């Protein structure tokens, strides 16, 4: 089980505050929307990750637990 940051792209308004708080895992595309790393959140960044999630004005970020395989993840 690992933890990953997930963004709800429908809620996100792209002001990019999260990328300032957590540049190690979040970068912005050229329109200012976050590209979130697929990598697990390392223990050393857990506090920053929680802060970025808590401060997102649109509540678009979540911490997601992932098991090795996602059963019904990506349909087309």
């Amino acid at each position, binding site marked *: 089980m690992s933890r990953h940051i997930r963004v709800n*792209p*429908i809620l996100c308004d792209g002001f990019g505050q999260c990328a300032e708080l957590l540049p190690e895992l979040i970068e912005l*595309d*050229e329109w200012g929307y976050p*590209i979130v790393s697929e990598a697990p959140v390392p223990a050393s960044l857990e506090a920053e990750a929680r802060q970025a999630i808590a401060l997102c004005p649109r509540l678009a970020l979540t911490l997601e637990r992932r098991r090795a395989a996602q059963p*019904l993840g990506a349909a087309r």
Partner: protein
Amino acid sequence: MSALTVREPQLALEPRLLSRTSCAAPLPALSRAREREHLLAEIEASGLTGRGGGGFPTATKLRAVALGRSPIVVANGTEGEPASSKDKVLIAANPHLVIDGAVTAARLVGATDVVIAAGRADGRGIAALEHAVAERRGFDQGIALGVVAAPDRFVAGEEKALVNWLNGGQAKPTVDRPFERGVRGRPTLVQNVETLANLALIARHGADWFRELGTPQEPGSALVTVRGAVRAPGVAEIELGTTLRDVLAGFGGLTAIPQAFLLGGYFGTWVSARDALDLPFTNESLRPLGASLGARLVIALPQDACGLAETARVVRYLGRESAGQCGSCYFGLPAIATAFEMLAGGTADAPQALERLSRLVPQVEGRGACSLPTGATRLVTSALRVFAHEVDGHRAGRCCAPRRPAVLPVPDLHEHEWS
């Protein structure tokens, strides 16, 4: 060019999905848990996978939804793909088989509500479904059947969008997965109409019968739409694993030397004619080319057409069809379309356009709440690969195929509704 000559039609296939005799036998009883488990095992053994583009194993989906409380079944016949007609043809030819499949799926997962969705523009399909539902009145004990006419948007057939629209919203995707939280918040099985028709046939004839056609990994038949440079464009049922050459022969053969095929739909993949012509029509054999069966669409692009110009029009269309909810899709797809148009326009700006595309594609791929952005980048990437020689020509300011009618149909700028 002997490698591209076409043989006699090889599609002498006894139609299953498009024949009404296939639904003459009664459906099996499913009132007992043992009977349902038997059929679920049979569907698993049949290897049936989704026919709506994703290719997900149907038995796995049925089992997941069956675990939920009072689920709902949605038959997806919306077919928003502009060049595709296979679901419309199936619905018109055999509405009862589709409904049989939906009712059987409902009994398997414990649903009492079945919604059958077709596209609003598909008047013939809606009428056929409504007529069939009326004919069945009193037959499907304990199941409520409804027919709905969904908005005609490319994205409206995406399962989360369809569920959102059925819930009274716009036909735009959400982030809720239907099998967990779908129509009225209930677990929802969304299944393509061709998948359901196959399910009804497996319920009647069993897994071994189903596997008499196709390959061991990809059993069964498939409805395909074939258009472009073929004599008799349209829809036919083929055996999975038939070579593309034989599929084309079944559509009257080629009318011109093809340079490439678009496989899968508008978020499919371009493959060069030479690479693909003798490959069996299966996901397995197309995978090395980066292609898949997708929405089972084949468009043969004749030698005198411009693959870049054709792609540019489709990418612009896909950008227009963005539901405008996710920034990377709303901004990214039009930006890609603009860069691609620059490239296809054969102007001196082509080198910059190519460079811009190489920066845009990674920013858009895999983003968004649905696969529209990923599908669009797949199309663009494959076009740059397959038409690489043309890219060089266009970089030098040359377009190979000046004014000729478009091969890939793109709906006019429309004001189709989202709800």
